[in-house]
């Protein structure tokens, strides 16, 4: 068992409302990612689960039992800190052994457990070193080992990969997924990196200003963002949003363009809407009747693909194209739209129209 449940968490620091009614249900054995920009309350949420923050309101249940007032030691959780928080005076071995020593495990058991986790993370040769003698990546592995050496109810990870360089980060991403598969266990993983979130999570919660915007699988969040903010935050390049309104069987853009109205677009005529178009659902190469006319504004070759900025009136859309695409600035262009994959948001509330995208 290893379910973590947070109900209505509230926490403020002075005038800043860090958590504003955060509710999360982390199923047993899941890789649960909390995604949000910095300042969204991700770390505070994690610290609240760990028992490191005193909450203003809300409850934390672990395995169905109320643990809101339990001290961290009694919660049977392990945490990896963003700064790693390795004890500077202790060797890697002592750092990793710390959770077992705190629980008074016998010495030979400790040695076996540390050796096992060191092998899992390929850090056998680091065991005698102190944190000052390790690189960032090595410290990160030791911090991970300190958490994984035990089989706690759940593992809490606070942006553990943020301080690593890109190559190492990609490596560790795969490695963490592998570890989760082989060890099992419940992971609650906090990050501001949407690529991490989408690639690692089996459940994803998007957090903004201390409130949960959406919870779902990565695919659900990407394909059916609950509101325009989530649509803008998840996905790279950023989704293009065009102001428009529905009229009869047409969508009419603020810049004058016209597209057929999708059947699922239930909004009443004339209501201000935002049409959300992801770069991969647009094409400058495909010919189609369902298209927007504009002019080429910029071209960004990225090796495996190119991003084309097309100006539609005063608005701008990003289009994913083959790397061979060419063109000069100001050239007229027709952008084919895959309307089945488009998103519509209410311009006032920002919420997605029911049935958006499908």
């Amino acid at each position, binding site marked *: 068992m290893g379910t973590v449940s947070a109900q209505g968490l509230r926490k403020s620091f002075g005038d800043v409302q860090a958590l504003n009614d955060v509710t999360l249900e982390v199923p047993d054995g899941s890789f649960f990612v909390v995604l949000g920009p910095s300042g969204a309350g991700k770390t505070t949420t994690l*610290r609240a689960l*760990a*028992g*490191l923050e005193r909450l203003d309101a809300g409850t934390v249940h672990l395995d169905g039992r109320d643990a809101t007032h339990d*001290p*961290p*030691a009694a919660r049977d*959780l*392990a*945490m990896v*800190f963003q*700064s*790693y*928080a*390795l*004890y*500077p*005076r202790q060797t890697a071995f002592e750092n990793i052994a*710390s*959770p077992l*020593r*705190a*629980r008074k495990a016998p010495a030979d058991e400790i040695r076996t457990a540390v050796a096992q986790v060191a092998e899992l993370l390929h850090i056998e040769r680091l065991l005698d070193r*102190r*944190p*000052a003698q390790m690189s960032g990546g090595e*410290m990160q592995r030791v911090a991970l080992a*300190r958490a994984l050496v035990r089989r706690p109810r759940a593992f809490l990870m606070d942006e553990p990969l943020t301080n690593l360089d890109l190559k190492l980060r990609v490596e560790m991403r795969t490695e963490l997924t592998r570890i989760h598969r082989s060890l099992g266990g419940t992971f609650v993983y906090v990050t501001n990196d949407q690529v991490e979130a989408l690639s690692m999570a089996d459940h994803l919660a998007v957090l903004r200003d201390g409130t949960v915007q959406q919870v779902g699988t990565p695919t659900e969040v990407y394909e059916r963002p609950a509101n325009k903010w989530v649509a803008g935050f998840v996905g790279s390049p950023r989704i293009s949003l065009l102001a428009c309104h529905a009229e009869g069987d047409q969508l009419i853009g603020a810049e004058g363009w016209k597209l057929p109205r999708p059947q699922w677009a239930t909004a009443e005529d004339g209501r201000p809407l935002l049409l959300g178009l992801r770069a991969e659902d647009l094409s400058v190469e495909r010919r189609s009747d369902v298209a927007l006319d504009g002019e080429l504004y910029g071209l960004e070759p990225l090796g495996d693909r190119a991003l084309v900025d097309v100006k539609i009136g005063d608005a701008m859309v990003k289009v994913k194209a083959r790397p061979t695409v060419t063109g000069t600035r100001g050239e007229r262009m027709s952008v084919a739209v895959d309307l089945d994959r488009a998103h519509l948001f209410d311009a006032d509330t920002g919420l997605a129209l029911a049935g958006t995208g499908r």
Partner: protein
Amino acid sequence: MALSVDEAVPGPASDPTPHARRRTGGGSRARAVIEGGLLLLLAVAMLFPVLWMVETSIKDGRDVYAVPAQFIGFDATLDHYRDVFVKPGGGRSDLSVAFLNSVIVAGASTALATLLGVPAAWAYSRFTLKAKKDQLFFILSTRFMPPVVVVIPIFLMYRDLGLINTKLGLVLIYTAFNVPFTIWMMKGFIDEVPAEYEDAAMLDGYSRFQAFYKVTLPLLVPGIAATAVFALIFSWNEFVFAIFLTSSSDVRTAPPAIAGLIGGTTVDWGLVAASAVVFALPVLVFTYLVRKHLVAGVTLGAVRR
């Protein structure tokens, strides 16, 4: 990230004078000579009393009064140093008792102030407390006044409590003066140790206090040592309370005891100087030991944040 308190304290400025390097003309040499000359003058002025004290302590009684004064060429003697510790007829001298009292009082008050101040500093560093800044300011404000301002009320209170002329009384008052200092200085050192170490220890399965004791405290040892030496020096040197609150020679600490040698019809300056040297030595040694923290410790420790 794994910065220990010791490493976080920058050493004394070690860079050679930059302007002397930049220009290589004759002007810079003249400048260096003037600078050196002024510094030498200052050093002589500052060190002369010390030199005179040391000289007097090893001069024969009549050489002390010699006119013109002799800097060299007198007969050196260690009789005065013997007299500091041994009574003329044998047995322990009053001064040696006073030194012992000083050791006891300064040691006990420093230990007590450290024991009380370090946990308090930890609490002020780690916890959200109501009006924390005001509390810290209040604590500091107890050091605003010179001791002589409060010595009369303290005297009256001590008389009622029966603490007049007791070592315990001195220990308590010195502790009261050292605790605020300890809290402020230690808070600076503790602020430098990331709170996440303790968070991590708590998740490892330790209680909050165990987390402090096992993880943070070992990192604070250099800071505690520096702070304790400052407290020790304060208690060791303290004169005003000592002279007002003690009267008998078996309780009196060294500062008033040495001052008591002056007065009467004849003053044995050799003895005064010798006891002053003995009195100054421990402070010199300790100051030397913590010279790195003397500047850095105070600025980094207490002023930042």
